[in-house]
């Protein structure tokens, strides 16, 4: 540890082991410097005869971010910063090599850098032996593997990420396959064909195999395009179909249209077409995907039903007319007989004629009710606001006239109600007639409205001496209330039919002394 005079202007005393090592390398300080600073990342030279002395080059310490000037040439210094488990490995290798020159002392160990990071070092050592083969020195070099190790770690991490992504991809592919299988099964079972208008500015489309099949074609037999679709679309359905597309594009209205497409055989079949547009950031439609579903059978059934209903309606109309007219004529002729010859007709005959006339009246009322009950469906009616209170006032006044004034009433409904006027008038007449036929005398009638849970209810009541216990919802069934009181047995059935037509509710609320019927007129009110 003596400084050689004049060797350096810097007053750094060379360690004896450093000097010895230089000499060992033939005294060529240039070669030594090249080895020490140029090609390797640290040299150590350990005196095994004095094991507490080990020279370590400045690069040795600089690799660990340590100022060499702060360190002693003592093995305890490096043993202080090497990872303990790696230190054990290094010392064990060293001992084996010391005992057996054929055992290579070469290991990768970790040191703790001054900034806390890990420094990976390849540490190789070689024993210098005396003429007896006894190790007296140990010369070693460090090679920094940190960047390599970090690259290895990054590679391993990338490998792991890749592995995970592959696993996820496999899972996604598997799930996609499952979904595709399910989708294909669903499409095959539901008679649905898929179309994809890939660019709404162009005419190119995708049609699923099922789409082709529904039109009677082999997959891909004709071009999947807007022009082909248009060519197969029934001319009468073209305008409304494309109008629906335009409304969907411009206003976002659902695209759900029934149209006819010509199949390969030339016949037109009904399909339900639905679709949804994909839009860009500005909301403009760019693509549209949808489906067609074969609804030919349903449409045919519906058309048959409509025709059957029309036939039934026609039959009901003719039947009502043909039944009504004889009864009306009979009634009129009896009236003429009674009026023109009443004075000469024997009392008993006169009474019989009056009874026949009453029966005619009952039959007329029943036919009128029957027609009202069956004739709503085709009626051209339009919803509009009416003064329901005024309507009831008018009908009650008419009824009071017919009853020779034996009726009193109180109408409190004043706000207009939006409804189907012609139907509501039929109901109002029936309610009034129901009160006339079933109400107790003196007949007192009230018509009011109130709000129940935010819904406007109309409440019609009349004096009544019936038994509330026997009144059930059956009163709304036809002919339930028919009796000898002149009613047709259809009045309340007609009222319910009118309320149903308005999607409203109707219920009876019988109490001792009063029969009340409450109803709503649904959404239209």
């Amino acid at each position, binding site marked *: 540890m003596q400084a050689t005079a004049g060797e350096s202007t810097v007053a750094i005393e060379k360690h004896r082991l450093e000097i010895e090592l230089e000499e060992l390398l033939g005294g060529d300080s240039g070669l030594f410097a090249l080895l020490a600073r140029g090609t390797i990342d640290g040299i150590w030279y350990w005196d095994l005869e004095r094991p507490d002395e080990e020279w370590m080059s400045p690069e040795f310490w600089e690799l660990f971010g340590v100022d060499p000037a702060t360190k002693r040439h003592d093995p305890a210094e490096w043993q202080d910063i090497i990872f303990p488990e790696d230190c054990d490995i290094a010392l064990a290798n060293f001992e084996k090599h010391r005992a057996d020159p054929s055992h290579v002392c070469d290991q990768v160990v970790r040191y703790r850098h001054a900034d806390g990071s890990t420094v990976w070092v390849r540490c190789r050592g070689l024993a210098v032996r005396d003429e007896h083969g006894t190790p007296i020195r140990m010369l070693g070099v460090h090679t920094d593997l940190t960047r390599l190790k970090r690259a290895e770690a990054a590679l391993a991490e990338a490998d792991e990420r890749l592995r995970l992504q592959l696993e996820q991809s496999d899972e996604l592919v598997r799930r996609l396959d499952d979904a595709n299988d399910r989708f294909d099964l669903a499409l095959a079972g539901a008679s649905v064909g898929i179309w994809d208008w890939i660019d709404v500015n162009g005419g190119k489309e995708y049609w699923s195999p099922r789409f082709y099949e529904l039109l009677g074609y082999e997959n891909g037999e004709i071009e999947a395009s807007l022009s082909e679709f248009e060519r197969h679309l029934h001319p009468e359905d073209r305008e409304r179909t494309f109008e629906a597309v335009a409304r969907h594009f411009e206003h976002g209205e659902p695209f759900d249209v029934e149209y006819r497409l010509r199949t390969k055989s030339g016949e037109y079949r009904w399909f339900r077409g639905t679709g949804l547009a994909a839009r860009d950031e500005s909301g403009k439609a760019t693509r549209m995907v949808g489906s067609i579903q074969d609804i030919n059978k349903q449409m045919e059934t519906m058309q048959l039903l409509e025709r059957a209903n029309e036939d039934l309606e026609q039959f009901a109309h003719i039947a009502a007319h043909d039944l009504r*007219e004889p009864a009306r004529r009979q009634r009129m002729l009896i009236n003429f007989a009674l009026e023109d010859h009443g004075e000469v007709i024997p009392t008993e005959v006169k009474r019989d004629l009056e009874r026949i006339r009453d029966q005619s009246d009952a039959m*007329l009322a029943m036919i009128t009710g029957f027609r009202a009950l069956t004739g709503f469906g085709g009626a051209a009616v339009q919803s509009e606001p009416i003064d329901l209170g005024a309507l009831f006032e008018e009908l009650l006044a008419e009824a009071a006239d017919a009853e020779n004034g034996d009726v009193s009433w109180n109408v409190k409904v004043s706000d207009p109600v939006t409804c189907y006027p012609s139907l509501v008038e039929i109901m109002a007449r029936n309610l009034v007639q129901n009160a006339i036929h079933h109400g107790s005398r003196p007949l007192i009638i009230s018509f009011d409205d109130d709000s129940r849970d935010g819904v406007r209810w109309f409440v019609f009541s009349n004096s009544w001496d019936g038994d509330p216990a026997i009144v059930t919802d059956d009163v709304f069934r036809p002919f339930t209330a028919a009796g000898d009181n002149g009613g047709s047995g259809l009045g309340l059935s007609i009222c319910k039919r009118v309320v149903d037509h308005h999607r409203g509710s109707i219920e009876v609320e019988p109490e001792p002394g009063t029969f009340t019927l409450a109803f709503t007129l649904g959404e239209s009110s």
Partner: protein
Amino acid sequence: MSDGGSPRSIAVVDDSADDVEILTRCFLRSELAGAFEIRPFQTGSDFLDHMRLVASGIEPAPAVVLLDINMPEMDGFEILRSLRSDPAFETTPTVVFMSNTDRLEDRERAVALGSNVVPKFGTIGEGVEFFDNLVG
């Protein structure tokens, strides 16, 4: 209301003799009795034949035509259409009788053909009132 001393006619086109009888008896109780006469036609063809004579000036024009709708061979609508097709009878007053079981669209059709629509009489009073108000 009379033309040269002979009463003007009220044409009634109805296949039902009973209905014609009822109409006539109501008419005879009304204020029109004496000033007018009922001229019944059992079929549309008979009536249109008569109107051709009217168009030729052979027969006087009826003051008003009362029509039933439901008739065999030619119904009231067809009769109305034929009548209106002759410009001479475009404005001839017509009344179509309908029962209250008839369809709303039928009423609208009759009105569209330039006819009034009146319910068939339910009482003698209604019938008499109808004729009392028929000619203003």
